[in-house]
């Protein structure tokens, strides 16, 4: 079988398109590259959506954490503590077991006018359940980063905003938030990179891979189990992830340039990739 044929059969295997059966023997390098690359679709899906939604929740939690009112601050502190203080692996298991316990038939919601049945089965599927966990998890980590940045917003900036008569939402949107984002951006980039790395945990925790649709590491471990040779599939995963990391850094440095565009050149903070693994 030619490599082009393999790509056609397996490039979208992880989302259920193309050949149904995985290769069983005589694995070629092309097959391993294609299938593992196909699995990467899931890593990107989880990473992009968790970051996208997490960004907003994280901003809200960070602002809540900086609030002076006890009743607003405490829940934010607990949210951050629970998700940062426990392993993501356990969070996945816990969420899965909780979702499984929801009634299969769905939950009857009694609204005043009508009754609707909320379907809950999709929550036990990785695409939704794991995404929720990753979303909450990255929100907690990002909120901590944003909170730190919020506290380092220069006092002069806020005083200047006050002097211009800015208040409330206007002041936040125009002065505090952009500065917070600028200060937090290098750390946030690292968080994004490690979130992408953390997506490899999904199919090794509670969430089962349905019809062998898994992520990059799922297929890599499939090959390693079948061939008993870890020296080919895992380096392929490594290769893909280094590529993904480079893409994240590139995109992020564009944003960073925009956030810092008003500053003199030497005051700009470059993005440095600092390792901080597992969550």
């Amino acid at each position, binding site marked *: 079988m030619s490599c082009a044929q393999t790509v056609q059969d397996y490039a979208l295997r992880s989302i259920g398109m193309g050949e149904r059966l995985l290769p069983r*023997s005589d694995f070629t390098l092309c097959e391993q590259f294609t299938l593992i690359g196909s699995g990467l679709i899931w890593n990107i899906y989880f990473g992009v959506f968790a970051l996208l939604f997490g960004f907003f929740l994280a901003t809200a939690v960070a602002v809540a954490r900086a609030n002076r009112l006890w009743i607003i601050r405490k829940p934010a502190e607990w949210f951050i*503590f*629970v998700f940062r*203080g*426990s*392993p*993501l*692996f*356990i*969070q996945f*298991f*816990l969420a899965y*077991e*909780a979702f*499984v*316990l929801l009634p299969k038939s769905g939950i009857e919601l009694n609204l005043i006018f009508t009754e609707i049945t909320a379907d809950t089965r999709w929550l036990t599927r990785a695409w939704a359940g794991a995404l929720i966990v990753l979303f909450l998890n990255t929100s907690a980590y990002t909120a901590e980063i944003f909170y730190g940045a919020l506290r380092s917003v220069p006092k002069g900036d806020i005083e200047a905003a006050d002097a211009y008569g800015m208040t409330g939402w206007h002041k936040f949107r125009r002065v505090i938030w952009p500065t917070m984002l600028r200060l937090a951006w290098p750390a946030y980039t690292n968080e994004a990179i490690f979130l*992408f*790395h*953390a997506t*490899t*945990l999904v199919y*090794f925790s509670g969430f089962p891979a349905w019809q062998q649709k898994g992520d990059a*590491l799922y297929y*890599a*471990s499939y090959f*390693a189990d*079948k*061939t*008993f*040779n*870890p*020296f080919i599939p*895992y380096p392929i*995963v*490594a290769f893909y*992830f*280094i590529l993904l*990391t480079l893409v994240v850094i590139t995109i992020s440095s564009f944003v960073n340039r925009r956030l810092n565009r008003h500053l003199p050149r030497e005051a700009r903070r470059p993005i440095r*990739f600092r*390792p*901080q*693994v*597992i*969550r």
Partner: protein
Amino acid sequence: MGGPAVFMDMFNSCSDPSALEGISWLACYLTSGKHLGFYTSFGTVMILLAITAPTALLFGFSGAMAARARFLPLRLLGKGYTAMVRGIPDIAFFLFVPIALDQGLEWMRHKVKCPDWQEPIRQGSDFVVCAQAKLPLSTSPQWVHETYGFFLAVLAFSVVFGAFAANVLFGAMRAVPHAQMETAQAYGMTERQSFWRILVPQMWVYALPGLSNLWMILIKATPLLFLLGVEDIVYWARELGGSKTSIYAYPHPDWRLYYFLGLLVFYLSLTKLSEIVLGRVTVKLSRGQATLAGEAQRKAAG
């Protein structure tokens, strides 16, 4: 002296669980043989932490020293080691390192013990070494197999966390004020002396934030033992929590959620405790240091 007698009585009453109810059922359930295995596995996690932390520190220290070396190949090795772990998900390492180590060790033993073996080691999808080279030998008892698996897991953790520690320590060594090293040279210390007597004692305070961060990450990485096939807390939580039909001594529905909640609480308390302890260590290490924290302490002492 009724205490032990009552205690023994409680255990004796567990012989027929179906007759029990309420609190006494729960007490018997939580002290069943399998649950004792579950509690022991918390010890496994602690042992892993206790062995991995110093080993990783040792790996990290060697890595940082190698990265500082003048000898180019050694420096490249050190830098390569730290760079290796950065862009790649650590779980990939945890899956890769144990198999690779296992095969590496078996291959070396194979070369030594069976020099006249003709067939290739990789036969299609199989990895075949002679029987004497197997690790552990197929004749050895079960506990040897389990210990060997645990040992590989510890090594995998140490390799990965050693790389991160190397990165932290390398930065800490560079953070020690240059004037300190120059003073050491002015006193006529050799390079080796100034490294061990000036640099190493002073670098810890700079390394501590990074190292405490690593410790937190290490704690949160321990459930990955489950992926390496060690019977750890995650394994037992799944095993014990799954619903048990009436053929079991203690039938119950799916309780895995509660077991995992227990694990969550365990990890949260472990990280909280570490936070408190590490905070105290930071205060202690800052004493007499040429840093802001050290200066603040000196002023407070008057």
